[in-house]
């Protein structure tokens, strides 16, 4: 025997279903209210998740990046070779990229001048994504230039570029969308040997290899900054990500709040419909009570009617929401099936649950009123 058959044997379920069938338009309208409420909650929730996923995808690899810069109490004007060596020991297995920075003006053939940040680095490939050309693992004699600067100056790959009275050949062009730190302004990347006059490194970037960026940060802090002595400043983007995450959680809550209002409105509609229909059926319910149907049985019957509206609206609303979610994810993340992951699908479940809960609560008062009406009074009027 199927579940439907079993349910059908429950008198409250059977009676409730038939009662709802008596006024189909009213039932459909009450259900529609719930559908709208569920869709509002679920699709706003899903929209929040989709936006968050798109945003974190943009932040991308930053989560495994740790940056070390000289601290307030640093003994030297930068990170020393010795410190870099220590960092390599602590972060063994990770890619450690020390860099020196400066600012210079590059002049083009037509005499235009552009200010760029100069970075001296060996492992350029770890730091920069290239629009064209190669970023060699070890940058020796070539240079990299940011795409936009090259366009501005009319420079191309293979052209020479001068820095500190020495010429370098442009080996590759750096894409401009490179996460947070490096996106602004033009940038010239030269071998670290080009900046030998600077004794110390300005920053060390560590790309952790499967290791928690925060854990590495703690280790480095413990090693260099003993007793609050700020020798180096260690930063990772985990807290940026955390902040982005918490922003989206807040956004999501706000969206859900707005969605919930429509479901509250829908449940008031259910309250109204159930109240009207029990008042209309007053005499009928009086007959039920007269022929010996108990208060609890009448109560269950009316409550089941309200729950049916909620479940029906909830199912339809969930289906519509999933459809909306598929479209949203397709537009925002290119992978519509992501809507079925729990992070976003949970809002469909919440919407459904809330619909059933709200309709149940709305049914309580009409059900109680119908059940406690004295049969004598009900039959008379």
């Amino acid at each position, binding site marked *: 025997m199927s579940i439907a058959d079993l349910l059908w044997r429950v*008198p*409250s379920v059977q*009676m409730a279903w*038939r*009662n709802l*069938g*008596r006024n189909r338009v009213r039932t459909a309208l009450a259900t529609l209210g719930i559908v709208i409420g569920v869709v509002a909650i679920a699709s706003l929730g899903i929209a929040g998740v989709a936006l968050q996923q798109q945003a974190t995808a943009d932040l991308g690899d930053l989560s495994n990046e740790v940056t070390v810069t000289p601290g307030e109490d640093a003994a030297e004007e930068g990170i020393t070779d010795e410190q870099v060596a220590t960092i390599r020991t602590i972060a063994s297995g990770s890619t450690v990229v020390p860099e020196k920075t400066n600012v210079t003006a590059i002049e083009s053939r037509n005499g235009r001048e552009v200010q760029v940040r100069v970075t001296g680095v060996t492992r350029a490939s770890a730091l920069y994504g290239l629009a064209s050309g190669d970023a060699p693992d070890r940058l020796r004699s070539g240079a990299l230039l940011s795409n936009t600067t090259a366009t501005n100056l009319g420079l191309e790959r293979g052209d020479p570029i001068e820095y500190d009275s020495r010429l370098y050949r442009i080996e590759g062009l750096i894409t401009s969308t490179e996460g947070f730190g490096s996106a602004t302004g033009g940038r010239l990347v030269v071998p670290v040997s080009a900046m030998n006059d600077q004794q110390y490194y300005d920053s060390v970037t560590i790309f952790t290899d499967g290791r928690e960026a925060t854990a590495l940060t703690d280790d480095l802090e413990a090693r260099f900054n003993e007793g609050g002595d700020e020798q180096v400043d260690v930063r990772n983007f985990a807290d940026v990500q955390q902040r982005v995450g918490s922003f989206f959680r807040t956004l999501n809550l706000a969206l859900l709040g707005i969605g919930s209002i429509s479901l509250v409105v829908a449940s008031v509609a259910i309250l109204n419909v159930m109240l009207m229909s029990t008042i209309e059926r007053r*005499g*009928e319910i009086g*007959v*039920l*009570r*007269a*022929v*010996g*149907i*108990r*208060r609890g*049985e009448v109560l269950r019957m009316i409550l089941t009617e309200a729950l049916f509206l909620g479940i029906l609206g909830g199912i339809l609303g969930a289906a519509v929401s999933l459809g909306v979610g598929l479209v949203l994810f397709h537009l925002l993340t290119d992978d519509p099936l992501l809507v079925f992951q729990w992070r976003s699908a949970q809002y469909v479940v919440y919407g459904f649950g809330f619909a059933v809960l709200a309709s149940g609560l709305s049914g309580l008062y009409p059900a109680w009123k119908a059940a406690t009406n*004295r*049969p*004598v009074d009900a*039959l*008379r009027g």
Partner: protein
Amino acid sequence: MTVIELDDVVKRYRTGAEEITALDGVDFRADRGELVTIIGPSGSGKSTLLNMIGLLDTPTAGGVRLDGREVTDFSEAELTAERRSGIGFVFQKFHLLPMLTATENVELPSMWDTGVDRRDRAVDLLERVGLGDRLDHRPSELSGGQSQRVAIARSLINEPEILLADEPTGNLDQDTGATILDELTRLKEAEEIAIVAVTHDEQLVDYADRVVRLVDGVIQ
């Protein structure tokens, strides 16, 4: 054998500042196999008396016994249980549920009983009142006389000791009313039940074994 017994029953209502005495010391009893008709002008307390007999209402003073058991101080839940198992109701306006078939309407009082299937008895009862060919019809597809016969079948589903009828012929024409009264008379003998009917209808008086006249809440 006495099924229902009312002992010096008084019922007072309060409407606004006024207190109305609907029943003023009424003694009443009905035996198995007997059709008792209660007649009286409107406002005489007939319906109130029927409500007392049907355990739909409780008296202000006096006692009620069903099958020799004192039920005066029963709670609402206990009264509901007594109504379900021992009392059948037939109303002037039939009061069938429109979304249920004839058979389902007959089954209604036993619908919530777990582990009991009264389908066969419902069909049997409908056949006995001559509606064997109307089992799956809805009330909207039945005539007044047919509807009232469904209502009578419904009142008998739980094998009651007493059947209460409030103007059972009130919404029917003369001939149809007569067939309903024939039906009740037949049932009273076949099922050995007490039937108490409230009416204005002189026709019903002819079928009665005993007539109780009620005027201003007092039996004459």
